[in-house]
């Protein structure tokens, strides 16, 4: 169920250039049903900025009622969010959307998780849940440069992890697709989150595989009412001509959304 919760900041730290990790505690955590869901955060008590900021959930700890979000502070809104400190209260709406289907990969099977930039965070909770049920996870993470790479070690503890940077300052020089071309295609499913060109390249490379993509769109309400974040669907992929990224997604089976 979607609730509006006044969550408490447990910690906030910068983990890479302009990349922040924030832990939040509150009863909203108990409502999270799948990795890849997101929350809609009011970064200010005033109307400046007016709208909430959609941010993906990177890790969930139900016992402690705690979730971790990782976001890039690049504008006014996320800049304000990055100034919150432990003990501060944040108005959070969520959990929103439909996340990655963990049950689409069986125990003993292999899944490839491909993330790009600030699309990497939701893959962390996904990988934790997949590996916990006995799925072998291979992580391919792409970033602009070494100074914005984060969670490399955390992913490495869960499975093979490959890094690509556009400038070659960490791992393979180039894009996630450069790594994908080098690796075995003996896997059952792929899961991906990142910028649109990356999602397009991933689904084209793995066209015969079962996969799930998480999309990003400029959002208004976050709950499906305002029709700001609609995307066309591919013909015959679904019975609908369009989907709303916020409430029908953000995760869709590969091939459904027109890229």
């Amino acid at each position, binding site marked *: *169920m*979607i609730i*509006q919760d006044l969550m408490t900041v447990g910690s906030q730290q910068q983990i890479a250039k302009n990349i922040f990790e924030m832990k939040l505690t509150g009863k909203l955590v108990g409502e999270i049903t799948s990795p890849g869901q997101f929350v809609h955060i*009011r970064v200010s008590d005033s*109307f*400046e*900025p*007016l*709208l*909430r900021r959609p941010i993906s959930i990177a890790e969930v700890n139900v016992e402690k009622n705690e979730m971790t979000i990782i976001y890039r502070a690049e504008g006014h809104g996320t800049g304000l969010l990055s100034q919150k400190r432990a003990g501060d209260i944040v108005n959070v*709406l969520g959990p929103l959307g439909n996340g990655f289907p963990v049950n689409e990969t069986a125990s003993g099977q292999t899944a490839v998780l491909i993330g790009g930039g600030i699309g990497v965070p939701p893959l962390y909770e996904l990988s934790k849940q997949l590996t916990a049920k006995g799925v072998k996870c291979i992580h391919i993470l792409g970033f602009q440069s070494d100074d914005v790479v984060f969670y490399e070690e955390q992913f490495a503890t869960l499975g093979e992890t490959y890094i690509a940077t556009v400038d070659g300052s960490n791992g393979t020089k180039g894009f996630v697709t450069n790594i994908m071309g080098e690796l075995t295609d003996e896997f059952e499913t792929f899961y991906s989150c990142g910028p649109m060109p990356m999602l397009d390249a991933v689904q084209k490379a793995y066209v015969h595989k079962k996969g799930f993509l998480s999309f990003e*769109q*400029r*959002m*208004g*309400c*976050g*709950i*499906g*009412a*305002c*029709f*700001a*974040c*609609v*995307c*066309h669907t591919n013909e015959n992929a679904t019975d609908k*001509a*369009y989907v709303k990224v916020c*409430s029908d997604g953000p995760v869709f089976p590969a091939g459904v959304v027109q890229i």
Partner: protein
Amino acid sequence: MSRLAITLPGLELKNPIMPASGCFGFGKEYGNLYDLSQLGAIMIKATTLETRYGNATPRVAETASGMLNAIGLQNPGLHGVLENELPWLEQFDVPIIANVAGSETADYVEVAKEISKAPNVHALELNISCPNVKCGGITFGTDPEIAKELTAAVKAVSSVPVYVKLSPNVADIKSMAIAVEAGGADGITMINTLVGMRLDEKTGKPVIANKTGGLSGPAVKPVAIRMVYEVSQVVNIPIIGMGGITCVQDVVDFLSAGASAVAVGTANFVDPFICPTLIEQLPGKLDELQIDHISELIGRSHRL
């Protein structure tokens, strides 16, 4: 609750608070969050004769204390609304105000005729002011004579009272109001959004795919208050006021300016529980103002 009850043409409102058209879909998303029967009424998303996909994305952009939108009247069309959306809303004890849009008079007339027969539609809101569609909408909303003729044409076929939604994008809103009243309008809803534009900081190009969008949110409230103040003094039909309402003081301001009820738009995106919250807080506000019934506030800004 009777302290908050307001009676308007076709509408027995439990309270003067309703979500504005385009900010509430057809209610389903908010119906998952709270009991919609609490609301005074619901203004559902604009319905056109045919299904509309709307504009390309990006469709929204944030601005100082506001936002621009250019959704483009995306909706499932008259038959989709009659078959799926309105029947779903029948489970709630709340009057529906159906927002009617079109490209030409015949579209408006056809939609108005059919949708006004739905059992839970208690009034129509004639959308002659959407700034975000290529044809229709705004053209009907800027010429008093055309607006009057369209109002009369819709009045002739509607089974329920007709409210006309006025655009603020005109030189003289009073003449528009007088014209639709002469056309037979039972009420006025105002204001729709103000046409605006935001440019991308890096490219210098418009952020919204449609280039222009409608400005809403707290930023537009002073414009809306001024227009309600002016219009309420030149017509004898009631006004449902809207434009940047986020708190009970805003509700009081709109009623004081001359509105008989209010609609809440953009604030639903910031706080999806805003409407029930305002309804809950209103009695306390009346106590604070030492007012027995909410109707005592209506038009007090220009009362002699």
